[in-house]
């Protein structure tokens, strides 16, 4: 995504919606309507603190009809690379933040006969947008929301008020567990399932659904994997001949951007495939962290998703 398309916004309001979770309302600096979006869409926020820049994706929430503002909800994560801490601790009303236009890699499949929405923790953000859109369209849906305890259950009360019986809450603190296998067996043929939450939960839901005979086409998930750091290494860009150092807590894409260069990318979470890059040589194994390439492609080691993956060796040479 070219940065020239970025939208300059200002934080208009900050609301604490649950323990460790804040909602940020962003309004355009120039006025004028923001681009419209559908449930499941996200934007990437660019945040700069001195020399460090974070670009993190956050799902859009709130009324899809209101083009005067976007809302995102952010969990202050313990193992943050810095983005969520920056938003929680350093951003105040009036802070300027530039964002990309909405990108949707997690759209609703509206031909579905029924929609089964499953959220874990902060994964509620795209799922709640989906519930609102389905509700507005008069489509059939159920929402199952698992969360550690009531204090952390962002938007739980609001959703129960809005959608009533269709919302089911499961608090770990009360020992409640999502009855996944039963749910999977009870859905009418033509149901689509959407899951967002912690990585192990997504894996659990998708594995059980596959085992229950669900078609892959009916399963939808979104993971915003914060790329894990690792040993620093050097990346050499064969076409431009430049060598860049990729720091411990930095991605290849971030190193490229820090050098003032641009490389194709979109989701920054290893999901969309836009940043797929040819590997010319690597002096150590590739640490693939994406959900885009197949297992065989990972093993072959000829392609890498530079937004999340790295190299466990001194030098990686890319066709860039």
């Amino acid at each position, binding site marked *: 995504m070219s940065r020239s398309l970025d939208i300059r916004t200002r934080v208009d309001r900050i609301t604490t919606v649950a323990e460790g979770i804040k909602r940020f309302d962003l309004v355009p600096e120039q006025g004028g309507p923001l681009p419209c979006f559908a449930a499941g869409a996200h934007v990437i926020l660019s945040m700069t603190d001195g020399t460090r820049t974070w670009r993190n994706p956050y799902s859009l929430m709130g009324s899809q009809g209101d083009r005067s503002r976007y809302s995102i909800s952010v969990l202050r994560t313990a193992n943050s690379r810095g983005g969520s801490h920056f938003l929680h601790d350093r951003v105040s009303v009036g802070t300027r933040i530039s964002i990309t236009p909405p990108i949707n890699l997690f759209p609703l*499949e509206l*031909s*579905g*006969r*029924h929609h089964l929405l499953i959220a874990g923790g902060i994964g509620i953000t795209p799922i709640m947008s989906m519930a609102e859109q389905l509700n507005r369209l008069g489509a059939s849906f159920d929402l199952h929301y698992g969360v550690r305890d009531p204090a952390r259950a962002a938007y739980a009360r609001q959703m129960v008020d809005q959608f009533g019986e269709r919302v089911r809450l499961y608090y770990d603190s009360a020992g409640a567990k999502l009855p996944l296998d039963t749910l*999977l*067996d*009870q*859905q*009418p*043929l*033509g*149901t*689509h399932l959407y899951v967002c939450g912690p990585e192990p939960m997504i894996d659990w839901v998708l594995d059980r659904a*596959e*085992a*229950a*005979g*669900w*078609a*892959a*086409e*009916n399963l939808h998930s979104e993971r915003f994997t914060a790329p894990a750091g690792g040993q620093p290494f050097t990346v050499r860009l064969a076409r431009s001949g430049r060598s860049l150092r990729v720091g411990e807590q930095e991605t290849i894409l971030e190193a490229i951007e820090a050098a003032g260069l641009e490389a194709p990318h979109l989701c920054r979470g290893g999901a969309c495939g836009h940043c797929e890059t040819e590997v010319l040589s690597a002096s150590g194994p590739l640490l693939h962290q994406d959900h885009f390439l197949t297992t065989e492609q990972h093993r072959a080691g000829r392609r890498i998703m530079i937004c999340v993956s790295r190299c466990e060796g001194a030098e990686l040479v890319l066709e860039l």
Partner: protein
Amino acid sequence: MMVQGIKSRPRYSGLHPDPHAKRHLVAAEGEGALAVIDLAMRAGGDFLASLTLLYLPGEGHEAKLFALGADRFESFHDETALLGALDHCLVEARMGTRLYATGTEGFIGLVVQLAHRHGIKHLSIRTEHRGSLARRVYCVHCKAITERVTTNIVECRDCQAPLLVRDHYSRRLAAFMGVAVNAEQPDQIPPIEEIFP
């Protein structure tokens, strides 16, 4: 003259059993019976005990299919009756049911079209083409559908336009596109050949 290499042209990758499915729902027509028998051989296990088989008989395959011993087997006199029964099955079915379709292209297309109305994506339906290549052809001029077309050019059953049968396919209509072949030069109609026997 034939317009090929069109992306919408359906592909049929064969009836492979879904090992995870809890229920198998098969709609078969004519020669498709042989694909169902192959499928049952490949699947083994308790496939037959969880199989609902709806069949529109062709020549002499009905007894063989009945002999398979599917949990539920029904045969029908016409396409409409079979599709009506399939519609009912799809209403009742739950996730974990795998849908299969086999027979002529026109028949598979009608099953896929019906399934779509129940929210089932075409990619999740396992299909195998058997029997005639005859096509359902949609006239882009008058919207009529001409059935069982085996030639490169066919007269529209409604507006009588000589339609060139393209590979361009609509899943919604379950038909191939037919466009007047003489639109530019009304007196020039290329030779008619049987190309979808």
